[in-house]
């Protein structure tokens, strides 16, 4: 069977199927459509809705967005900091760095606390993963992985394994053993396979399931034992940079943020995108659920952190200052949810009063970008990882030489 021959004036990627081929330039309702011959035939056969084109879809999308904004505005009767006016102002915080963890040879990209509130795992650009004991500063395990830029790491709830992933497009689980002579890298098991870098990973409530986010624009839920994909989440239109699981025991939602400036809330079982928030002006680097589970915060390259309430379905606070011009790369809440710790690319960590919207404190000390801040599970310490190859942890002591 030979294809019909025709005179083609242009050659390029087809607007429908994106394959480069000779294009037939036709006009539908005076709008130029450049499809390859296959797509033109398909269009004719399917009886495509008249006039459906990029422009009309865009128009419909804009009008729906406006309607959504109106619906949300109706419920915006007051701002969070207005409701919080009557609360006492926070006293001076004396959170200071107490220990510096040195050992990585290159930028530390990610860290995570273990549920025992004592151990933490950190990963770096040179392919090393180190498990530390925060009390004694001992390095309990060190794993060298073949790929560089391990962009994310997570501790399993049981404390018996860690997961890590990055530029190798995979997320792997490494069981931790007490035997010092064992080569942990050999026991590494690849669980997640994406088509682009893995930017975030977390275990769900058990060691058996792993949730990952990737530069290919999707998030996915995997079974650790079999490596099977249980659910995938499509909806972002650009790289997904971060995700966080809802805190409750029965929680089956998670939030993700990406380079398309959107933060999406997903239902893990159905794979549906439940809510979507688009108010940042640049890539969202990190998202974190509020301890109550009814809200979340996001940190973005637009130098602001924002607080979104899930029940009101809108942003209720913005944490920004004219003097802060560098992007924020990470956020975490204190135990009560009163403080928001945000790490910035200007090497500082700003501590925001969540309710009043003001800055409570600044933590200095790192000599390069802060890549991750995490409050320990019992809320006593804050650990920060940075591109200056170190991790620092800080606490607030009551009786000490200040």
């Amino acid at each position, binding site marked *: 069977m030979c294809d019909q021959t025709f005179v083609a004036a242009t050659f390029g990627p087809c607007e429908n*199927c994106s394959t480069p081929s000779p294009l037939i330039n036709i006009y539908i309702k005076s709008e130029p459509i450049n499809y390859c011959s296959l797509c033109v035939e398909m269009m004719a056969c399917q009886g495509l809705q008249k006039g459906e084109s990029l422009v009309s879809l865009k128009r419909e999308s804009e009008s729906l967005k406006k309607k959504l904004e109106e619906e*949300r505005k109706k419920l915006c009767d007051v701002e969070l900091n207005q409701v919080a006016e009557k609360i006492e102002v926070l006293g001076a915080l004396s959170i200071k760095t107490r220990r510096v963890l040195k050992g990585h040879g290159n930028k530390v990209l990610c860290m995570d606390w273990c549920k025992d509130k004592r151990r933490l795992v950190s990963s770096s650009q040179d392919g090393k993963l180190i498990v530390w004991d925060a009390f004694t500063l001992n390095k309990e395990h060190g794993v060298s992985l073949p790929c560089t830029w391990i962009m994310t790491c997570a501790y399993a709830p049981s404390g018996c394994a860690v997961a890590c992933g990055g530029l190798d497009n995979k997320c792997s689980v490494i069981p931790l053993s007490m035997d010092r002579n064992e080569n942990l890298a050999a026991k590494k098991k690849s669980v997640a396979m994406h088509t682009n870098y893995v930017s975030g990973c977390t275990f769900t409530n058990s060691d058996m399931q792993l949730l990952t986010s990737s530069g290919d624009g999707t998030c996915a839920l995997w079974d650790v034992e079999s490596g099977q994909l249980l659910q995938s989440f499509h909806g972002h*239109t650009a790289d997904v940079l971060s995700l966080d699981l809802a805190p409750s025991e029965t929680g089956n939602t998670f939030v993700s943020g990406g380079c398309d400036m959107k933060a999406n809330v997903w239902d893990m079982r159905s794979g549906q995108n439940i809510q979507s928030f688009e108010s940042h002006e640049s890539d969202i680097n990190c998202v974190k659920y509020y301890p109550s589970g009814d809200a979340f915060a996001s940190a973005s390259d637009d130098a602001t952190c924002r607080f979104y309430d899930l029940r009101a379905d809108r942003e209720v606070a913005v944490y920004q200052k004219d003097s802060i011009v560098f992007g924020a790369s990470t956020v975490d809440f204190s135990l009560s949810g009163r403080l928001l710790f945000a790490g910035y690319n200007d090497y500082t960590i700003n501590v925001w009063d969540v309710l009043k919207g003001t800055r409570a404190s600044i933590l200095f000390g790192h000599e390069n970008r802060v890549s991750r801040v995490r409050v320990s599970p019992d809320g006593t310490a804050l650990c920060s990882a940075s591109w200056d190859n170190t991790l620092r942890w800080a606490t607030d*002591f009551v009786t000490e030489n200040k």
Partner: protein
Amino acid sequence: MARDMSDKEILKMELDQLKKEVSTPRTPVAANCADTISFVEGLMPNDPLIKGVPDEKNPYKGDKGGCVVT
């Protein structure tokens, strides 16, 4: 994957999502904020990073006799 989709498919996806979202149930901000505030006030007295941790209970204390240069 998003980067394999044409602009039209991306817009269609966004459109479907928006159609779903317009009808989600929402509650007024004032009520939610009041909830958030009471949640925080309930937990604040026990927040170690705000209240501080006394020396005796502090597991991170480390050896005495050191000098902390701040």
